[in-house]
């Protein structure tokens, strides 16, 4: 029998190894997260904040209203609406957005909320998938994500998501575009500083889909990410490309614990 202290050490070592295999990359990368964690809304001006806080003035609520209508509209050969299977979104969709993106075994791939909605369209409703960033896709996604408002981003990285997480993490540090900047240069190393007329936030996804005054419209997280690519004059990856999905996975982990604001309002 091993001396007591050695047994103790062995147990600790085993626990350590076990912990590493469970949350390995997460554990290793923990120092990469901004601290203290702050939502993008904290970096906006008072008028933007009051617009987001007023459920009537918040223009994103128009998409919530539209989504609520679509929820009850039958689509495709199934003749079924979202509500026919999921009943009240207030209960069935509560907290769902906080868990996305997920790994979907059937699809064999990473699926974000938009992707999940389209899987239901094609597989459950036998309907045509909605075009990414179309008004109806935005409305349904916003309506579903809104049911998680106030919930905390979970950002878990189960084993099946790990490869995607690592790619996203790498991508976050890769210099891109004519400006030769990586995400991390702005959102990790320089958050809180001013860039032209804007304060750089920590770059979290907890408000999306969000209404941007610059767009005069609501847009998805991927639209915002593409805008950052455009900002550094890099080629924009297409919607639902592996590159953007991997970044979404990394961002969820990076911002875990933040409160979901959908529909957020941003400049």
């Amino acid at each position: 029998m091993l001396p007591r202290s050695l047994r103790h050490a062995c147990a600790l070592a085993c626990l350590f190894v076990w912990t590493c295999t469970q949350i390995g990359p997460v554990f290793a990368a923990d120092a990469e997260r901004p601290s203290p964690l702050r939502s993008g809304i904290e970096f906006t001006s008072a008028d933007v904040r009051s617009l987001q806080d007023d459920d009537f003035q918040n223009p994103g609520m128009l998409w919530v209203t539209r989504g609520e209508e679509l929820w009850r509209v039958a689509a495709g050969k199934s003749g079924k609406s979202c509500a026919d299977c999921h009943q009240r979104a207030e209960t069935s969709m509560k907290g769902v957005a906080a868990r996305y993106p997920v790994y979907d075994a059937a699809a064999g791939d990473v699926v974000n909320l938009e992707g999940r909605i389209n899987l239901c369209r094609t597989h459950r409703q036998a309907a045509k998938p909605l075009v990414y960033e179309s008004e109806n896709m935005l409305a349904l996604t916003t309506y579903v994500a809104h049911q998680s408002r106030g919930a905390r981003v979970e950002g878990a990285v189960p084993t099946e998501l790990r490869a995607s997480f690592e790619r996203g993490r790498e991508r976050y540090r890769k210099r891109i575009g004519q400006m030769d900047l990586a995400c991390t240069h702005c959102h990790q190393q320089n958050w809180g500083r001013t860039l032209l007329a804007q304060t750089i936030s920590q770059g979290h996804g907890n408000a999306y889909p969000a209404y941007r005054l610059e767009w005069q419209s609501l847009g998805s997280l991927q639209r915002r990410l593409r805008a950052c690519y455009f900002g550094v004059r890099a080629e924009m990856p297409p919607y639902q490309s592996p590159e953007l999905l991997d970044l979404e996975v990394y961002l969820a982990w990076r911002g875990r614990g933040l409160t979901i604001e959908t529909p957020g309002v941003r400049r």
Partner: protein
Amino acid sequence: MVARVQVPGNAKRGEIIDIRIAIQHKMETGFRFDLFGKPIPKNVVNEVVCRYNGAEIFRAELGSGIAANPYMQFSTIAEASGEIVFDWVDDAGERGTERASITVSA
């Protein structure tokens, strides 16, 4: 066209009440061009009318200078129970309507 109207459900007669409306609309200014350089025709909600039990209490004429998804707020005096109805039309002739009811007690 989606819209949201907010009216207090209950009020006392003579009370000043706030009425709010938000309309989902691109409010295309007419000053923009598409990817091929063709001008995008102006299309804005050009008129919004509000009636309280049939009587007009508010009218707005909007133009190119108004941001997308216009939001308006005004106040009126609660007189009688009934309906507050908004009607609007855009340059393409598309019409919208949205209503809310109010109960007024003495």
